């Protein structure tokens, strides 16, 4: 799977594409033309990379160190949300250059993955995270964290737990959003706040929560998160290019922080 064949190809002779239409009506894209996975959820590195370009945030001040290796608790939905939030914390620990915390998070990812039945799928990644942190190879730690996130989700999907895979993404998104808001709120800039404009992702997560099986929907966290997403929606700009105010950034942070606290509380 995903193998790379090594054929010698010269791209120098690549031809320019036939002119594609300059404008399309995106509101009328036929349903059958949509790819099954309705939106590509970006990896955290895409956002952290932009933040790096905007300045040098005080990541150590944003990092919320775990108290030892995270232990699973609650039902699978909460475990999956918790795992996602821990992986997001890993990205913050990388930004903060905190070797001990990155290693702790690597072990926590193993612990939480075990409870969800996907430990085997991420063992190699978790070990790579720990080793790369020891070596101070931060770009590699980032890459392995991205990979761990994907492999956890792939393994869950293969086990028929696509709903839980979405919960992992959602947990990561909420903690990542809280951290992003923290950084932007401390040193507000329009470009930094603009990173919060993610309407397709909000719609995606809302749709995933709405499509959960009846039993999963009964988990207390589900309606709380649905309400939180609904409240965040108008704060992140209704159209592309809308300026997101410092006040809105703080409001989004408070909503996301509240949800992350609920996720991480027994």
């Amino acid at each position: 799977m995903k193998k790379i064949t090594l054929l010698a190809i010269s791209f120098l002779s690549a031809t320019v594409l036939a002119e594609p239409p300059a404008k399309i009506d995106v509101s009328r894209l036929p349903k059958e033309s949509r790819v099954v996975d309705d939106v590509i959820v970006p990896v955290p590195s895409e956002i952290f990379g932009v933040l790096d370009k905007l300045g040098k945030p005080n990541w150590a001040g944003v990092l919320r160190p775990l108290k030892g290796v995270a232990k699973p608790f609650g039902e699978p939905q909460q475990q999956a949300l918790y795992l996602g939030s821990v992986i997001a914390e890993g990205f913050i620990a990388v930004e903060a250059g905190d070797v001990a915390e990155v290693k702790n998070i690597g072990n926590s990812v193993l612990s939480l993955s075990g409870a969800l039945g996907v430990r085997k799928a991420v063992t190699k990644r978790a070990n790579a995270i720990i080793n790369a942190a020891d070596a101070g190879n931060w770009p590699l730690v980032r890459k392995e964290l991205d990979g761990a996130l994907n492999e956890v989700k792939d393994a869950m999907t293969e086990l028929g737990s696509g709903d839980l895979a979405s919960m992992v993404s959602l947990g990561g998104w909420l903690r990542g959003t809280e951290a992003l808001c923290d950084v932007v709120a401390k040193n507000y800039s329009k470009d930094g706040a603009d990173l919060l404009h993610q309407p397709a992702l909000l719609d995606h997560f809302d749709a995933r929560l709405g499509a959960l099986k009846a039993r999963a929907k009964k988990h207390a966290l589900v309606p709380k998160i649905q309400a939180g997403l609904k409240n965040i929606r108008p704060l992140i700009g209704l159209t592309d290019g809308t300026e997101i105010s410092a006040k809105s950034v703080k409001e989004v942070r408070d909503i996301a922080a509240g949800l992350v606290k609920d996720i991480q509380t027994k």
Partner: protein
Amino acid sequence: MKRFISLLLAAVIAATPALASVDDALSYALEAAQPYVKEGFTVREDYWGGDMAVKQAKAITHQLFKGNEYWFWIGTDEKAAKVSVHIYDSEGNLCEVEGWQKGQFGAARVIPKRTGTYYLIVEVEKSNRERTHWGMAYGFR
């Protein structure tokens, strides 16, 4: 039980060539990505693919961030096929700054002017097959 196993085997055998072809298509997309890794692009370890009829475009919704630069690469295992990827913003304007197409490979680059929703339109422009496998990857820096 024996009948079930036979049916399962038959299903696996029938499915194998199709999976292998999507895999091959992805490997071509990744091959197209290789020169850009040297330019500092991080290729995401997640891929998208399937099969399409000629001229049956598919749309993929994607969240892109201003401040990043993206390359999208598409490939197919069908030698005679021509595949393409194009990028449109949330208002439907073509927004790629560069693109190329060479037989089984196609690519497009975008530097988002705004953070938000973008649409990738992937298409098999020419093929001898009724359905053509395609695979897409992307990178950012």
